[in-house]
C-alpha cells in the first residue's frame, strides 16, 4: 500500500533530480515531464495502479540520478536563452 505521503516525497525527489541536468533542454523536459505525469495520474484510485505508478517513479528516480550525474560530467556552453549565473 502506497501512501499519499510517499507519493509526495517521490514527486519532490524526482523534481529535485530533474533540476540537476546541466543540459538546458533535458532539464526543462524532465521538469515538464515529471509535473505533467503526476498531474495526469492525479485521479488514480486503483491501489494496484498507484503501486505500479509509484514503482515506475522509483525506477525513474534511479535513472535520473545516473543521467544527471553524466550530464554534470560532460558540460557544454550555455544556450542563448539561458541566463548565466552571477559570478561572485
Amino acid at each position, binding site marked *: 500500500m502506497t501512501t499519499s505521503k510517499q507519493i509526495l516525497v517521490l514527486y519532490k525527489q524526482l523534481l529535485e533530480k530533474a533540476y540537476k*541536468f546541466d543540459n*538546458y*533542454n*533535458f532539464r*526543462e*523536459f*524532465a521538469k515538464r515531464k515529471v509535473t*505533467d505525469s503526476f498531474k495526469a495520474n492525479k485521479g488514480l484510485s486503483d491501489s494496484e495502479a498507484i503501486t505500479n505508478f509509484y514503482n515506475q517513479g522509483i525506477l525513474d528516480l534511479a*535513472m535520473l540520478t*545516473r*543521467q544527471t550525474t*553524466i*550530464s554534470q560530467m560532460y558540460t*557544454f*556552453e*550555455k*544556450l*542563448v*536563452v*539561458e*541566463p*548565466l549565473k552571477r559570478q561572485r
Partner: protein
Amino acid sequence: MLSRQILRNIARGSSARRVGGVRLLSQSKITSFATNAAESNSGANATVVIGNAQAPDGSAITLKTASRDESLFGTRPIYLDVQATTPTDPRVLDKMMEFYTGLYGNPHSSTHSYGWETEKEVEKARSYIADVINADPKEIIFTSGATESNNMSIKGVPRFYKKTKNHIITTQTEHKCVLDSARHLQDEGYEVTYLPVNEEGLISLDDLKKAIRKETCLVSVMAVNNEIGVIQPLKEIGQICRSKKIFFHTDAAQAYGKIDIDVNEMNIDLLSISSHKIYGPKGIGACYVRRRPRVRLDPIITGGGQERGLRSGTLAPPLVAGFGEAARIMKQDMKYDQEYIHRLSEKLKKGLLSIPSTQLNGSLDPASQYPGCVNISFAYIEGESLLMALKDIALSSGSACTSASLEPSYVLHALGADDALAHSSIRFGIGRFTTEAEIDYVVAAIQERVDFLRKMSPLWEMVQEGIDLNTIEWSGH
C-alpha cells in the same frame, strides 16, 4: 618561546617580501598588457564588431539585439533542426550504458550466457520497434540507417524480380538516397517514373494509377517529407498497390513514431526507419519487410545470414537496445509529445507568418501536415543570408545532405516554387526537447532580422514603392 617568535618574524618577513614580489610582478605585467592593448587598439581601430551583422557605413539601420549580452546569457545556438538529427534522450543513453559496461556478448553467440543475455535484449528491442507500426518482430531487419534501408528496398526488390518486371514508381520530392538509388537502377536498365506533386507537396492518386504498368514491381513514396513535412496518403496508395499486386515501400524516417502508421491497415510492404530521428543513437536503423504476402529481395550485404539473410553482419547490441528503447518511448509518449509539438508549432507559425510577405510551404490541411516541420519562405530575402544573420539559431534551409550546396531545394522546385521563393525558405524543426522560451526567442529574432535584411534590400524598397518586380528588365553584364 624566543625561537618560536623568531621563526614567526622570519615567516612574516618572508611572506611580506613575497607579497611585495607578487605585487611588483603583477604591476609590471599590467603595464605591459596596457601597452599591448593600446597598440592593438590603435592598430585595429576600424574593425567591425565581430559576430554581429552590420549595416553599411552611414546607414541608419541598426540591429540592436543581434546577439544578447554575452555576460548575461550563453552563446550556444538554439537547436531547431530536428529533421537532420535529434539529441539522444537521456533515457535511451541510460539503457545503452549497460551494454558498454557489462553486457558485451555477441548476440549471435549461442554457446554461452554472454551471447544469450544480449540476444534477449536485442529481441526485446526488435519487438518494441515492431510495436510502433503494428508489425511482427520477425519482420524487422536491422540496418545501418534509413539510407541503407532505402537502398536495400529500392535496389533489392526490382533486382529480385528482374526477369519479369523492370519498372518502379517514385516521386520527385523523395529524399536524395531514394532518388539516387532509382538513378542507379536506370543505369542498370530499369525504367523509373517520377510522380509530380501539387503545390502542397502531395501526389495525385490518379497519376499513380495511370503510371502503373504490368511490369511495375515497386512503388516508393515517402511518408513525411523531410523538407516541408507533408504526409502522403499512405493508406490510399497502399490500397492501390495491393489491388495491383505491386510492392509498396515507404521511407518513414521522418514519420516513424511521430504520426500513426499501421503497416497492416495501410498495406505497407517495406518501410525504412532511422534511429537518430527518434532520439535514439546514430548509426542504426531498420527496414520493415513484410512476411505475408512475402516480399522477396536481393540483399546488398551478404555473409553469415543474420537478419533472415537480408542483412548479414554482427548486430551492435548497444545501438539496437538504444534504438529499441527510443522506439518504446516514442510509442509510450506519442500523445504527450504530439500535443506539445503541435502547441509550439502553432505558436511559431503564428509568430512568423505575422511578418509581411511570408508564406508557409506545405499542406494547409492538418491531416496531411506534420506539425514538427515548419517550412516558411521570406520573400525578398536570401535564405542563406538570413541563416548567416541567425548565428544564434541552428536552422537549415533544407535537407542536411544538400545544405553544402547553394542550389535551391529541388523539393520546393517540385512544388512549383520559383527560384527566388526556393532560395528564401527556411525549415524549422520542433521536437520533444524544444522549449517554449526557445520558440519565443526565435520568433523575436527572426522578426527583427528579416526586417533588418529587408531594409538593406533594394528589391524590398521597390516593392514598398509599388513596383512589380516581374516588370523590371534586368540588364545582364
